[in-house]
């Protein structure tokens, strides 16, 4: 079930009303667990078994880790991690790995064909697997006690607002909130709904509108002009932002309605003046996951500059792989890693300019860089990405048609400007006055309906 579907709207209303009609937390947890199971099963029902299997393993692993010390403590952690990474390896990376082996054999003239698995990737697998791993690691590190109540633990992994596309939460932040009975709070409901509407606006009005341009330009690279391709690339930067941050807004808003606070996942990433800063503002829950569980355990910046660079590269390589089993994601991750290393060297840092124009130029340059790297993320393969970038750079003539008419193109630019302004200057979603809230609510519903593009487009990050 996608957030931008009628099914979700009905589901959300039913679950929320039922949630507040229950007077004890046990009932609420059970309701949310059942609702989350249904939410997940609405995609492919059978895959609940995979999720259920890892939940059972991690639940017991958490308790065994807590009870053990020394090597056996570590062993239980490793078993849990192997189970989670194993699921990822089979469902997400097996075909990629085998496909490359088969291609290698073919390259050397041997027509060996190892069979591929014919199955769809379970939706949101990387998200809930990482959230589950965060639990066992935190228990291992003694930052959080093992959860005794199976239902609470299962809900920690499956809480439907953030089940399939994050934010990837930590146990110490979410588990206490799930266990505590919090009475109905109208202010939270207002803020949550306002935030959800903003998320819907970003998804259906902006992201899915920009998708028409992006799909056209990435699907017709050869005949499109450089100008059209550049427009497509820039629009993709905003499409993926509005799509993913829109999802996060809806998730955070939906949880807020039920008095659960989720972590922020984005902080105006395109106002960053460096790639390093970009990664502290983009998909924060994933960046901080890699920082806490990969970068720092590898030594971080404590083992000298060269080791630090290697660690950064490893983290970005893993980040690329996390997004998908394709060389395009690996290239995207590695390029980000390389540029983070290169552009944070002192020579580049000294170029920092304290005046406003200088700062703005740095933001623009950084945005162009991020946009060019997104081309790898969006393209079907590295050759196609490179071809796309080359055609932008070679100032080719060709079709300027970008899939929408000029009015819609201008309208899209206006929407992007509104979105950027709103997120920079009007960040709060809390509306104290009821009258203003009702007006905002009504206006946003009307705008989302009349200007929304409804083609049942899934959220881009669902595939991860």
């Amino acid at each position, binding site marked *: 079930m996608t957030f931008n579907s*009628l*099914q979700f709207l009905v589901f959300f209303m039913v679950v929320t009303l039922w949630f507040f009609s229950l007077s004890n937390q046990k009932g609420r947890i059970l309701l949310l667990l059942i609702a989350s199971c249904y939410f997940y099963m609405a995609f492919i029902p059978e895959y609940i078994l995979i999720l259920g299997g890892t939940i059972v393993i991690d639940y017991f692993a958490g308790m065994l880790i807590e009870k053990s010390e020394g090597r056996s403590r570590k062993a239980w952690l490793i078993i849990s991690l192997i189970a989670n990474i194993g699921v990822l390896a089979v469902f997400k990376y097996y075909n990629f790995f085998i496909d490359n082996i088969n291609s290698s054999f073919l390259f050397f003239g041997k027509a060996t064909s190892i069979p591929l698995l014919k199955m769809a990737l379970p939706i949101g697998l990387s998200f809930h697997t990482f959230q589950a791993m965060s639990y066992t690691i935190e228990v291992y590190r003694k930052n959080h006690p093992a959860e005794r109540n199976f239902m609470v633990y299962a809900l920690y992994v499956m809480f439907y607002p953030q089940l399939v596309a994050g934010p990837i939460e930590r146990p110490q932040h979410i588990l206490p909130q799930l266990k505590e009975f919090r009475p109905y709070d109208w202010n939270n409901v207002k803020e949550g709904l306002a935030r959800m509407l903003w998320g819907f606006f970003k998804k259906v009005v902006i992201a899915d509108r920009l998708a028409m341009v992006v799909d056209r330009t990435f699907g017709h690279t050869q005949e499109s002009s450089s100008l059209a391709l550049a427009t497509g690339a820039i629009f993709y930067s905003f499409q993926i932002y509005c799509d993913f941050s829109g999802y996060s807004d809806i998730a955070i808003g939906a949880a807020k309605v039920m008095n659960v606070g989720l972590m922020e996942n984005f902080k105006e990433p395109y106002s960053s003046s460096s790639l390093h800063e970009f990664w502290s503002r983009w998909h924060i829950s994933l960046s901080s996951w890699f920082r806490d569980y990969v970068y720092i355990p590898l030594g971080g910046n404590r083992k000298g500059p060269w080791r630090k660079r290697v660690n950064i590269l490893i983290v970005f390589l893993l980040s690329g792989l996390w997004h998908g089993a394709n060389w395009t994601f690996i290239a995207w991750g590695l390029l980000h890693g390389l540029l983070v290393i290169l552009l944070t060297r002192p020579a580049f840092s000294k170029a920092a300019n304290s005046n406003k124009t200088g700062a703005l130029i740095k933001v623009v340059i950084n945005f162009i860089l991020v946009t060019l790297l997104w081309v790898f993320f969006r393209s079907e393969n590295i050759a196609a990405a490179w071809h796309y970038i080359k055609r932008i750079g070679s100032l080719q003539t060709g079709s300027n048609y970008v899939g*929408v*008419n000029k009015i819609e193109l201008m*309208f899209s630019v206006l929407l992007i400007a509104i979105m950027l302004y709103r997120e920079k200057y009007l960040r709060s979603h809390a509306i104290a006055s009821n009258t203003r809230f009702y007006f905002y609510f009504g206006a946003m519903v009307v705008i989302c*309906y009349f200007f929304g593009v*409804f083609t049942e487009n899934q959220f881009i990050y669902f595939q991860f």
Partner: protein
Amino acid sequence: MKYLTDARDNNSWWGIYQCLNGDLVSMAYLDFVDRFIEANPRTFNHPSFSGERKTILYMDGDSFTWHLHDSDIIGLDSFCYFQRNHGLKYHLDTSKRNVLVIEVSERYLQSYFTGLQMFNEVLDTSARKRDVAGIYLTSINSSYTASLLPSVSADDFFNKYINQNLQCNLFNYNFIMPMFETKAALNYYIFNRASGDVVISNDRNFLFFRETVSKTDMGSSYYPVSTADAAHIVDVLNGIYEHYKVAGFAEVYFSVIPNSATIMQPEGYNQLIPMVQNDTRLRMKLIDAYSVFKQSHDVYYLPGDTHWNHKGKQLWLDMLNARLVRDSLVQ
């Protein structure tokens, strides 16, 4: 089964918005655009026949061949239509000539003939062929009606069409239509496009179903296909042919009805139909609508519908009838 919607007075404010001007016009709420609306009579020439009616024609078809009657096809003793519904068990009357026609829209060609087992079971040879018609009626009632109310089953909650069902049940009222039409008008007049899953053709004279023109959809005329994909379809079709010939059919015909985009907007067409039909290994005899539609200067599709117009269907029927006569299956 009685549905809540059955009780509505369709002309009242809470009546059902009815699809009168074409399925795509209806999907995009573009009833106010005259160019997409065309009358489409449903009566066809009745071929004259004076011989003995000894042929039973079974039609395994889809919505293109709905509403056909015995009298539309030459020399039939009877006509049994079953929509693509497999696992049926039926009986052939061997005292007659049994002919099977498999008709499929291009947009389902790959999905139906790459994975599914298209086998129905022939039980024995007693004269109980009408069983098939009975099963067909039962199946259409259970599969093709938005059925959240009043009967709710587990399937409804995991149904891939749940959003369409919800929209149908929650918003398909006459009084809401002005809102839908306002949005459709906004998109049409300002942004020059249609709403939802409908796309306007490049010459702006036709509506296309999005999944028939999207490059990422298997049913699309522009979805990349390889010769291996086409060869696989041929293998499956040959298996189906063998199955039904062994079961006792005198002949099995195959006919793909092209997507309207394939004929009306052929630039970039993936050539799926010719790749399948021109494969010399294909054993089924063809009712080749693609070649005829492509070469003709006439228009065979409705401007606001996924289906053909009266002229297209009549032409196809003429081809079918001619083929039956030529192959001496009606005499």
